[in-house]
C-alpha cells in the first residue's frame, strides 16, 4: 500500500517528467507533414553531446535533468523553511541597506552609467543594432503596455496597431508614403513624434471609449481584431500606405539649431543614446504617474471597480486614459523604429508582435517598471542570442512556442513576474487566500 505522501511525490515527479518531455519536444528538431512523428521521435532519440563529455540520446539527458531537478526541488522543499530563515537573517541588514533612499538612488545611477558605457563594451555590430532595435525600442513598448496592462489591468492584444500608426505617421510626415505629406512638406522625423503620438492617442480613444466599458475579455478580443485590421489596411491600401512592400525611404533624424548640425544614422550607437534618453524620460514620467492620484485610481479600479466608483472615480475615464497613454508610447516607439531603420512594411505589424510585448511585461512583472525593463532586457536578449547563434534544427518561428510557454508558465508559477510590483504582489497573494474580490471568477460579475 502506498502512503499518501509517496503518492504526491510520485505525482510531482510525473508532472516534472511531463514538463521536461515538453521541453525536450520544443527544443528538438522539426518534423514534417509527410512524417508527422519524426520530429517527436527525433526529439527524444537523437544523439546529443553533453558539454562535449559524452554522447547520449536526448531522452537520457533529459531524464537525468528531471531527476536532478526533482532531487534539488525536494531537498529545497524539505529544507526551505530553514533555508529561508537563514537567508532572511543573513540578508536582513543588506536588505535594510538597499531600502535606504541614498542606496536606491545610487543603484539607479550605477545602472544608468552601465547603460551609458554599454555600447563601448558591446562592439559587435549585430549586438549593437540589437541594443537599439530589439532592446531599447522594446523597453519603450513594454513601458507603455505596462501602463495599460500593469497599472490599469486591461489586456490589449492589438498593441501593435498603435506602433504601426506611429511608424506610418513617420513615413507620412517625412514624405515616404504614396500619400502626400501634410501641406506637401517633407519634414524631419522629429516632427513626426508629436503627430504620431496624437494620432496613436486618438486611435486609442476611438477604440477604447466604446469598448473599455465592456468586460476585460471582450476588450482583449476587440483589440486583437483591431490590430489585425490595421495590418490589413496597411497591406491593402496601396495608394496610401504603399501596400505589402511598404516604403524604405524614411529619412534619419536630423538636428539643426544654429551652428549645430547633426544627423543620426551612422551606425546604431547615436540611436542608442537617443533611445536611452527617451527611455529615461519614460521611466521617470511613468513612475511619477504610478505614485500619483492617477496611479492610485488605476489600482482602485483594478481591485474593486464598484468601490472605486463609490468614491467618485469614473472608471471609463481612467481606463481610456491608460489606453491613450499606452497608445502614445507605442506610437512614439513606432517613430523611433521607422526613423532608425528607414523602413516600414505591414509584415512587422502582426499579432505575434503584440504577444511579444505582452510577454516582456508578464515575465518582468505587471505594474513594475523595473520589472518590465528587466523582462524586456532578458527576453529580448534571449531571442537575439538564439537568432544570432541558432541551435541545430532551430527555426525562427520556434521562438513563438517559447513566448507562449513563458506566458503559461508565469501565470502558473509566478503570476506577479520576476520583479513584482508591491501592489500587484499583494493583490495576487490575497486572491489566493480569498480576500480580494478581484479573484471572484466562479462567483461571476457582481455588477
Amino acid at each position: 500500500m502506498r502512503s499518501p505522501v509517496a503518492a504526491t511525490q510520485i505525482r510531482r515527479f510525473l508532472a516534472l517528467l511531463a514538463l521536461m518531455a515538453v521541453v525536450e519536444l520544443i527544443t528538438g528538431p522539426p518534423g514534417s507533414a509527410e512524417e508527422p512523428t519524426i520530429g517527436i521521435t527525433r526529439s527524444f532519440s537523437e544523439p546529443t553531446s553533453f558539454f562535449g563529455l559524452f554522447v547520449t540520446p536526448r531522452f537520457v539527458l533529459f531524464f537525468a535533468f528531471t531527476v536532478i531537478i526533482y532531487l534539488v526541488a525536494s531537498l529545497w522543499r524539505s529544507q526551505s523553511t530553514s533555508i529561508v530563515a537563514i537567508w532572511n537573517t543573513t540578508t536582513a541588514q543588506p536588505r535594510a541597506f538597499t531600502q535606504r533612499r541614498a542606496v536606491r538612488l545610487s543603484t539607479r545611477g550605477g545602472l544608468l552609467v552601465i547603460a551609458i558605457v554599454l555600447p563601448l563594451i558591446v562592439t559587435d555590430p549585430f549586438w549593437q543594432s540589437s541594443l537599439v532595435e530589439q532592446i531599447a525600442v522594446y523597453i519603450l513598448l513594454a513601458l507603455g503596455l505596462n501602463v495599460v496592462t500593469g497599472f490599469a489591468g486591461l489586456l490589449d492584444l492589438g498593441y501593435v496597431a498603435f506602433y504601426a500608426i506611429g511608424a506610418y505617421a513617420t513615413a507620412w510626415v517625412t514624405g515616404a508614403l504614396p500619400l502626400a505629406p501634410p501641406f506637401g512638406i517633407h519634414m524631419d522625423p522629429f516632427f513626426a513624434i508629436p503627430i504620431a503620438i496624437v494620432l496613436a492617442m486618438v486611435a486609442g480613444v476611438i477604440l477604447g471609449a466604446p469598448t473599455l466599458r465592456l468586460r476585460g475579455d471582450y476588450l482583449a478580443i476587440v483589440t486583437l481584431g483591431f490590430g489585425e485590421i490595421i495590418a490589413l489596411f496597411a497591406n491593402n491600401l496601396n495608394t496610401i500606405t504603399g501596400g505589402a512592400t511598404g516604403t524604405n525611404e524614411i529619412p534619419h533624424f536630423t538636428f539643426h539649431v544654429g551652428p549645430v548640425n547633426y544627423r543620426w544614422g551612422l551606425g546604431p550607437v547615436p540611436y542608442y543614446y537617443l533611445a536611452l534618453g527617451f527611455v529615461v524620460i519614460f521611466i521617470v514620467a511613468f513612475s511619477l504617474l504610478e505614485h500619483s492620484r492617477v496611479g492610485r485610481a488605476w489600482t482602485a479600479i483594478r481591485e474593486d471597480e464598484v468601490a472605486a466608483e463609490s468614491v467618485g472615480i469614473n472608471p471609463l475615464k481612467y481606463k481610456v486614459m491608460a489606453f491613450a497613454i499606452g497608445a502614445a508610447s507605442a506610437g512614439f516607439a513606432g517613430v523611433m523604429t521607422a526613423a532608425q531603420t528607414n523602413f516600414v512594411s505591414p509584415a512587422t505589424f502582426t499579432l505575434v508582435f503584440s504577444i511579444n510585448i505582452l510577454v516582456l511585461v508578464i515575465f518582468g512583472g505587471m505594474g513594475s517598471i523595473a520589472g518590465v525593463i528587466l523582462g524586456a532586457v532578458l527576453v529580448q536578449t534571449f531571442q537575439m542570442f538564439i537568432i544570432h547563434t541558432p541551435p541545430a534544427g532551430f527555426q525562427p518561428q520556434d521562438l513563438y512556442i517559447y513566448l507562449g510557454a513563458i506566458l503559461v508558465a508565469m501565470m502558473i508559477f509566478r503570476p506577479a513576474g520576476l520583479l513584482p510590483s508591491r501592489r500587484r504582489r499583494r493583490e495576487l497573494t490575497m486572491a489566493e487566500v480569498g480576500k480580494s474580490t478581484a479573484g471572484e471568477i466562479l462567483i461571476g460579475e457582481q455588477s
Partner: protein
Amino acid sequence: MSGIFQFLSAHFHILHITFWPLLVGGIANGFIYSLIAIGYTMVYGVLRLINFAHSEIFMAGGFASYFLLHALIGHSTPSTGGSILFMALGMLSGGLCGMLVAVILERVAYRPLRRRNAPKLAYLISAIGASYFMFNLAGKEFGRYNLSMAQPFVNHSLFTIFGAPVQMYYIVIVAISAAMLFLLDRIVATTKLGRGIRAVAQDAETASLMGVNIDQTIVVTFMLGGFFGGLAGFLFGMSSGVVYTMGFTPALKAFTAAVLGGIGNVRGAMIGGLLLGIVESFSIAFVNGAFIDVVAFAILVLVLLVRPTGILGEQLGRSA
C-alpha cells in the same frame, strides 16, 4: 443621386445572380461557426471566461483527421460505403483529438489558476500563451504549409436550387452539423450531465452545495466543447485544407457568433453562427474581398456596443 441608384442596382444585379449560391455557402460556413461557437459559449457558461485557446482545439481536430484520412485513403477514390466509414472516422478522430486537447488545456492552463483563485486577467494571459504554444508547436512538428485533406467522398453538384448548384460538400456539412447540434441541445436540456452544466452555469456556489462536482462538470464542459471544435476542424479541413494557423480566423468569427447569439447560451451560439455565416457570405457582394474578414469584426464590435447580451441573452441555464 443617380450615382447612388446605379450603385444599388448594380449590387442588386449581383445579388440576383448569386443569391442562392451565396446563401448555400453561407449556411454551410455558418454551421461550422456554430460548432466552434459551442465551445466558447459552454466554457463561458461554467467558467465565466472566454477560452482564447479554443482555436487550437479546432486546429488539432483538423490535423488529427488529416493524418488519419491521409493514411487510410491516400490518393484513392473511396466507394459509397467507404465514404460513410471515412466520414465517421474523420468526425471521430477530429472530435476526440479536440476533446483530448481541451482536457489537457483545462488541466494545464486553467486548473492551477482556478486552484489559486487567480484574477481573470491571469486566465486570459494563460490561455493566449497556451494558444501560441500549441499552434506554433504544430507548425514545428507538422511543417508550416497548407495540406489538403484526402477527400472521403467525391464532391459534385447534387441538385440545383433556382439554378444554383448545391454541392455534396455543403449537404454533408449541414446534415452532420445540424444532427450534432440537435444532439447537444438534447444533452444539455435533458440529461443529468446537462443539468449539472446548467446548474454550474447559473450559480457555481449553490451547485457545489447541492452536490454537483464542479471540477468534473468543468472538465465535461471542456470535453463537449472540444469535441465540437475538433469536429468543426475536420469539416473545415475537408474543403480548405489544414495548416497550423488555421484556427485563428474561424475561431475569431465563431467567437463573434457566440457573442451575437448571447454568450453562455447554447442555442444562441447555433443561431449566431448561422446568422454570421449568411451575413458574411452576402457581404462579398458589397465588400472588397481583401476586407471580408473585417465584416465579422465589425459585427462583433456592433453587437458588443448595441446589445452585448446578444440575440438570445446570456444565460446558459435559461436556454434549454
